[in-house]
Structures are given as structure tokens and as C-alpha cells.
């Protein structure tokens, strides 16, 4: 079903990767400072890695659409995502991305092959697969916090959209949806569901009475700030990358909150 899509993307990526794919080799002994400096020096590498990650995530999502995906292929893609994730964790980019998009837990779920081989019954019953439900829950939890407390939904919604879809967004997203109706609808389901009411409805399912909303609010505030320095531009400009790494401590906190939300 993705014939046309794949074709277009290939062209797109060929131009993106024109500088070659040889990845810089990060030794374990190399200190993080050095690694970070290296990354700032090659923003295109970050961009490439990001689009590779996006591509892999989309591929994984498409695997989930199938009742019995090619297990070998799914496992290899999942391992690739894990590898990228590991490297990004090392240089600090991971937490930034992760908090703004889907949250650590949900990405872990996505990578886990468990859902790759789930039984088809869940789908037949019209239920969301586990991966999706976590995705929805923690992201919308995030969003609902914003809309009800800080009224600044836009930036936080916009940010993950960029991340999730930068491969797609270069073309007409509406067209994509036509081709991929089923899959993309599910992938972007949460992102397009901006109506506060429905978000709150969904959020009401998450029992958050145990948590202090004020501490979360501070976390969300920093997220809102972060929302602006995100997306493709970030990776292409070295200065922005630097500012991102400064925000890291805030993000750790936020990461923690997202995890709590997921656990609930």
C-alpha cells in the first residue's frame, strides 16, 4: 500500500543523505563533552539520524497494521530504533525528543516486538493496540495539562507533530492520508485531535488525583518553552542544539512526569 509513498520518500531521502551515511563512530570511552561538540559540528548528521528514526518508526507502525508482519524485518527495524535511541541517549538528544513526542514508555512499547506479534483479536474488536493506547494516553495527558492549565496547547501540539511527521510533512499531508488512510490516521490520530473537550474526556480516564498538578505544571511550562526550539530547524542550526542541551535538566523532570502519567 505504500508503493507511491515509498518512491517519493526515497527521492527525498536521497537528497537528504547526499553527504554520505558514514556515521561518526562513538566510542564508549569518548567523553560526552567531546561527543556533543562533534554533533554540533555536524548538524546534518543529527538530521539524518532523526529522519532515519522517523522512517523506522513509521515502518514499525505499518508493521503493527499487519496481523502477521514479517517478524525478521520487524525485529531488525526495532533493533535499529533501539540503536538510534541508545546513541541519542548518550548524546542527550533522546530525552529532548522523547518528552516532546511520545514519551519514553510509549516508544519502548513501540520498539518492543511484543506488539509486533500481537493477536489480531484486539484489532478485530476495535480496540487500540497497546502501543497506541499508551501513545494516546500519555500524549493526550500532556496535552490536556496544557489546555486546561496553561492554555498554550498550540506549541506543545506543534512540536511533536514536527517530530513525528517531518518525513511526511515535506509533502502534502492530506495526500498521504489518502494513500495511507488507515495507518496514518492512526499515527496522527492523537495529533489531530485538538478539541479540548475530547481531550479532557480522554484525559479523565487517567486518574491523576494522586499527583500534584502544580509540580506538573512547572514541567509543562518548560515544555512549552521547548516547543519553539524544536523540529528540523533545531538540528540544522548549531546554536539551537546548544540551547537544547541547556534545557536538559528541565527535561529530565518532564520525562519523569510523563513516565508517571504512563504508569497511571
Amino acid at each position: 500500500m505504500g508503493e507511491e509513498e515509498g518512491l517519493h520518500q526515497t527521492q527525498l531521502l536521497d537528497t537528504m543523505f547526499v553527504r554520505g551515511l558514514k556515521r561518526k563512530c562513538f566510542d564508549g570511552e569518548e567523553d560526552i563533552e567531546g561527543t556533543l561538540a562533534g554533533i554540533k559540528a555536524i548538524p546534518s548528521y543529527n538530521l539524518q539520524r532523526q529522519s532515519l528514526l522517523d522512517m523506522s518508526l513509521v515502518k514499525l507502525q505499518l508493521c503493527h497494521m499487519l496481523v502477521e508482519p514479517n517478524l525478521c524485518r520487524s525485529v531488525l527495524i526495532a533493533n535499529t530504533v533501539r540503536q538510534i535511541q541508545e546513541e541519542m541517549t548518550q548524546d542527550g538528544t533522546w530525552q529532548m525528543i522523547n518528552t516532546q513526542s511520545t514519551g519514553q514508555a510509549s516508544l519502548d512499547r513501540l520498539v518492543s516486538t511484543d506488539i509486533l506479534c500481537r493477536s489480531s483479536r484486539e484489532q478485530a474488536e476495535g480496540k487500540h493496540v497497546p502501543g497506541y493506547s499508551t501513545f494516546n494516553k500519555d500524549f493526550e495527558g500532556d496535552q490536556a495539562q496544557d489546555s486546561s492549565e496553561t492554555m498554550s496547547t498550540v506549541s506543545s501540539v506543534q512540536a511533536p507533530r514536527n517530530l513525528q511527521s517531518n518525513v511526511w510533512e515535506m509533502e502534502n499531508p492530506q495526500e498521504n492520508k489518502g494513500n495511507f488512510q488507515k495507518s496514518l490516521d492512526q499515527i496522527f490520530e492523537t495529533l489531530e485531535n485538538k478539541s479540548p473537550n475530547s481531550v479532557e474526556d480522554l484525559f479523565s480516564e487517567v486518574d491523576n488525583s494522586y499527583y500534584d498538578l502544580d509540580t506538573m505544571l512547572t514541567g509543562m511550562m518548560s515544555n512549552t518553552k521547548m516547543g519553539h526550539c524544536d523540529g528540523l530547524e533545531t538540528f540544522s542550526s548549531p546554536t539551537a542544539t546548544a540551547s537544547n542541551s541547556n534545557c536538559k535538566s528541565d527535561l529530565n523532570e518532564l520525562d519523569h512526569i510523563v513516565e508517571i502519567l504512563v504508569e497511571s
Partner: protein
Amino acid sequence: ATGDKGGRVVIFQREQESKNQPHRRGEYNVYSTFQSHEPEFDYLKSLEIEEKINKIRWLPQQNAAYFLLSTNDKTVKLWKVSERDKRPEGYNLKDEDGRLRDPSMITMLRVPVLRPMDLMVEATPRRVFANAHTYHINSISVNSDYETYMSADDLRINLWNFEITNQSFNIVDIKPANMEELTEVITAAEFHPHHCNTFVYSSSKGTIRLCDMRTSALCDRHAKFFEEPEDPSNRSFFSEIISSISDVKFSHSGRYIMTRDYLTVKVWDLNMENRPIETYQVHDYLRSKLCSLYENDCIFDKFECVWNGSDSVIMTGSYNNFFRMFDRNTKRDVTLEASRENSKPRAILKPRKVCVGGKRRKDEISVDSLDFSKKILHTAWHPAENIIAVAATNNLYIFQDKVN
């Protein structure tokens, strides 16, 4: 024999050498075609089971009939292909069309006789080995004891007796208790050509395990483990994907194993586990294109590899209808093309070259103009002669060594 997506198996036979042209070897023609697998539906999982034939394996011939195993994703079938050139006539209770005769009409006893008739080749299903695989079957291999065979899927390998269809022994199971921890799958498996207790299986992490069935019923602990250390200079995000083994084959002698990964074909000595004794680059020029190949999923293509009869040459497929041969003794290699345009009957194949650098010489083809939809995944080599079969998408090409 060839199998196709529609579940059909086509068998080709080489015609007898003609008397007036003794130097020309016989050509191959269709011998028999039959429907091996039908599309099925797994009602428990609401899942359609494709009829696509994944593998075909011949059994050693023991009488006039031929036996072969064919498998789709889930079910293995044993087929008998036999010839019939006589038919019985003159039954007492049936007339010539097979209808029962009215008993009152039978007034005398006859002795049925066999009358010659046109040669008929019929394929009959003899055994159906079903319901033993949860995942997709990627390999079947007949054991040298001729009594058993194994079938491997992504996570398990089962051992069957040809006579018993309702049960099989699970000899390898790598399914983790928690599927979230799954990072490795079985990609191919094969029995040793002479030792019926030994088999190998390869994994998506580029490793090969040799198991001895005498040690225990469940061969989860390998006897030998073949793995080459990763070359740090070539490390990339795609390292694991391109090291995933798509095919593993014992040499006829049983001394070596050959493995095919995405970019190379390697020969391993059974007595040396830490690295292959030979590594041949199949299409190294694709190394710079891995991202596009990942993007269009070509990187997951499963190329097979074969030995020639004397284990001195190996052959494997590539893209653009190219296939490669490597002479292990002279270290010479050749790229050949199987295409309708430049292979008229009895035409001699010209070696092809893919140009890597900026300058393209005459007769060379640039990496960018390779057609990735034309791939040669399956190849076969005659067990005794230099005749090869190459499957290029929906065409089968048969080439033979130049006749003097």
C-alpha cells in the same frame, strides 16, 4: 522445480540428447505443473494464509517416482511425482469410464489388462504436515537419513518423520518468555549432508549455530557458534540489518558452510568458528546506498546462495537481474545478467560490470541506473554438471557451461 506466488509448482525436465547433435545437451522443458498449496484462512486468527511457495526440496530418488517437499508460510507438503504410460482396462465391475456396471449385466469374468497409453505425469499429495508453525516457515531441509526432515520458522525448528504428520519434535526454540525481549530470529536452517545428527541455523544477527541432536532433545545449546567480529570502520545503523543471514548452505563435502548476508557471501570452515575463511563481495557498491535501500525495503531482501557440484564455485544473486559467481580456487569472480533482451537461446553471456567511480567506461552500468525491482533471489546448480538455473522475477533462465 520452481514454486510461485500462486502456490503452483512447475517441474522442468531435461530432454534426452538428440542423436544427430550429440554435442548439444538437451534443453529443459516443462515436465509437470501442479497446484501445491491453496489459499487458506486461519479462522482462529482471522488470518489469510498465502499459498505462496517459500521453499521446495527434492528427496533423494529411491524408485521411479520423484518426491519433493514444498512449503508455504505454515504447511509443508510431501508430493509424489510419477509417470504413467499404461492403464488397466477390462474391469469387471466398472465400465471403461469408471461407472459401476449393472450387476445383472455382468455375465462373464474378465481378466483386466494393462494397455499402453500416452505418458502422463501426475503429482499426488502424499503427506500434509500442518499446524506446527506459529511463525513463517523460512527453510525446510531433508535429513541424510532420508527418514526425517526439519522445518524452520522465525523462532522454532521442528523435526518431522516423513511417515508421521500429526506430530513433530521441536528441536530449537529461541522464543523468549517475554516477546518484548525478542531481538533475534532464525533466518535459515539446514541439515549436514552426511551426518544426520548435525544441522546449522543462521540468525538475523549474522551468527550461525551448529547443533548436535545427540546431546539433547532440545538443541537450545549449540555445539558450535560461528561469528565474525564486527569491523568498526564499517559500522553504521544498518550494520545489523546487512549482517542478517539470508541463506545458509553446507558444501556437498560437508566440510564448509556458506552464508549469504546482504552485501557478501562467506565460506566458513566447520573447524574454525571465529571468522570465515573466505569473504566475497557481492555488490559492495550498494554500501553507500543503504539508506535508500532501507527506505524502499530492499535491504530486507533474502538472497539465496549455492555451491557447484565440486564445491569449487559459489553463486548468488544481486539486483538488476545480475548474478555473481566466485571461483574459490582462482579467486576470479564474474557478474552475469539474466535478461530476456540479451539472452537468446544459446547466446553466450557477457560479463557485466557496475561502475563505482565517477567515470563510466563503455559497457559499464552506473550504480544509479540499477533496477532494484529486478532481483535474483533464487538460484540452483546442477549437482554434477555445470548447468545453473536462475530465477529472475517471473522468468526462469537455465544456463550451461560452454559446449566444446
